[in-house]
């Protein structure tokens, strides 16, 4: 593996250049020469399959770039280091590197790039560290909102919402959906906006909070684009079905209306599983009569058929 040997040689050379030594009258490291060597060594290590050393090379290259005040390149190198860490499975380092890379982008005045870096980091961490992943998604969304680039935000929002729904954080998922809808409003994407509002209603109903669902629905009806859309009528039909308090009616409504299949994939899955939770209670919250069958509901939400 002469790539690995060459990389090793470059690495040692670069390390020598960066350590202060009195012999060569060098009190601070010579990062200008060392940084490209580190980058090249990192690339060779990666090709040779030695991920640990590749990661280390990229980290040092990033420090070098930072010393030279080139935040953009430093961030790029940190991202490469984070990718190597992800292949290795060192999740804490993945999180740190992606977060720092995103911050460097932001300091350079490029919030879009920062948001992209944060989104990539969140994507990588989705399974192992859902909390950090959600945190990174939130920051990515903030950067995009600040930059006004709502057009690019769609993908990030969708990934964030999918992640929150998988993690079953209903309140956060609804908040993110409403933010997405506000962003779509700014960029004029009416279809996505209406789907986001319907999605919010479905998520609340799935979580069993009929009151919150109703209040969110009322709020969103204030938006003109939504109040005359098919999605609003579908939500209305769903609420009527809930008021009747019968599971069969609810499932019928969801199946018949093609709109429920057109909303975001994760949320469509939730819609198909409706109704969840204590149906009689929710129906009464919405002003219905708790269902004509009025089957008693036990604590676990199962029907008491005795």
């Amino acid at each position: 593996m002469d790539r690995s040997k060459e990389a090793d040689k470059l690495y040692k050379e670069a390390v020598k250049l960066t350590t202060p030594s009195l012999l060569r009258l060098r009190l601070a490291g010579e990062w200008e020469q060392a940084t490209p060597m580190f980058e090249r060594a990192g690339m060779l290590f990666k090709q040779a399959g030695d991920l640990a050393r590749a990661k280390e090379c990229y980290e040092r290259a990033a420090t070098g770039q930072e010393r030279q005040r080139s935040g953009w390149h430093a961030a790029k190198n940190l991202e490469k280091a984070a990718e190597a860490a992800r292949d290795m499975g060192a999740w804490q380092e993945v999180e740190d590197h992606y977060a720092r890379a995103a911050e460097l982008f932001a300091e350079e005045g490029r919030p879009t790039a920062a948001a992209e870096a944060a989104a990539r980091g969140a994507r990588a961490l989705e399974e192992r560290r859902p909390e950090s992943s959600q945190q990174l998604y939130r920051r990515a969304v903030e950067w995009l909102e600040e930059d006004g680039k709502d057009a690019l935000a769609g993908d990030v929002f969708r990934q964030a919402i999918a992640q929150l729904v998988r993690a079953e954080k209903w309140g956060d998922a609804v908040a993110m959906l409403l933010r997405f809808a506000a962003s779509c409003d700014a960029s004029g994407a009416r279809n996505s906006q209406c789907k986001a509002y319907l999605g919010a209603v479905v998520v609340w109903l799935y979580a069993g909070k009929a009151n919150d669902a109703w209040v969110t629905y009322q709020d969103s009806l204030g938006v003109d684009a939504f109040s005359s859309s098919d999605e609003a009528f579908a939500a209305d039909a769903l609420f009527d079905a809930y008021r009747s308090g019968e599971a069969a009616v609810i499932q019928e409504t969801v199946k018949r209306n093609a709109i429920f299949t057109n909303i975001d994939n994760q949320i469509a899955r939730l819609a198909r599983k409706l109704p969840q939770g204590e149906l009689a209670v929710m129906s009464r919250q919405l002003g219905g009569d708790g269902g004509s069958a009025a089957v008693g509901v036990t604590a676990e939400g199962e029907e008491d058929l005795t």
Partner: protein
Amino acid sequence: MANVTDVLLRSQAIYKKYEKYDTNAATREKTDDPFMDELNMVADRVQDLQLRSDEIANEKNRALKAALNAELRKTKAMLLEQAIPLLEKMAKKGKGQTPEKIQARLGLVEELRQSIEAVADGVTSARKPQRAFTGSPARGGELTINPAEVDGRSGSTDYYKHTDDTRAFQQEWSEAKARQDQQLEGIETGLGHLKEIGAAMNEELQRHDILITEVDEKMDKVTKELQTNNMRLTGLVTKMRSTRNFIVDIVLLCIILAIGLYLYTFLK
């Protein structure tokens, strides 16, 4: 160029420098009664909530309003579920508490809870979805009976009884209607899908439009820079080709050839 991140970093740095002059942070520590501390903290947060609710009321953009209201409701629910029970628990503890004091404290907590619930969170009267198009078409085609055309036939009761023909006709009609309904439903689902596809394409194209405009601008900048560089390069090349350098080149070439020839004859 103003950048929010810059402003944020600088303001944080400035705050750190002058933190010791911040009276707000100091006054809260005065009381050594943990219950009153907690109460004051929660009261501060309730005030924040109230301020936010007022801001939201002034917000014109409905979509933003919906999103902010949801956040407000979430914070309210969190305060009601966590902070108030915590305060109630703390009211009962603490040294030197008499039953009257405990009652007084619980009264304060109750007041706080009511003030939290009083924060407006945008819940108004029930709304219903409405279709966007203006009013229904004018009602026309009233039924009129023209007495001049009435003939004697409709008087007899036989006229309205079913015959075989009419029965068959009616059945045919209902079958045809059922078939037509089925086909129409098929068309409806197909149209629904088409609408969905069309709307999705619309949004994608809008997004691409924005992206392409950006790429366009960047390409303009790059082309300009390339042109400047080209001009500079052509300038350099013409300078390099001037006659003086040519002559120097030829002379040096001759000298090298002469040396080579000399060495050749010398070594032969």
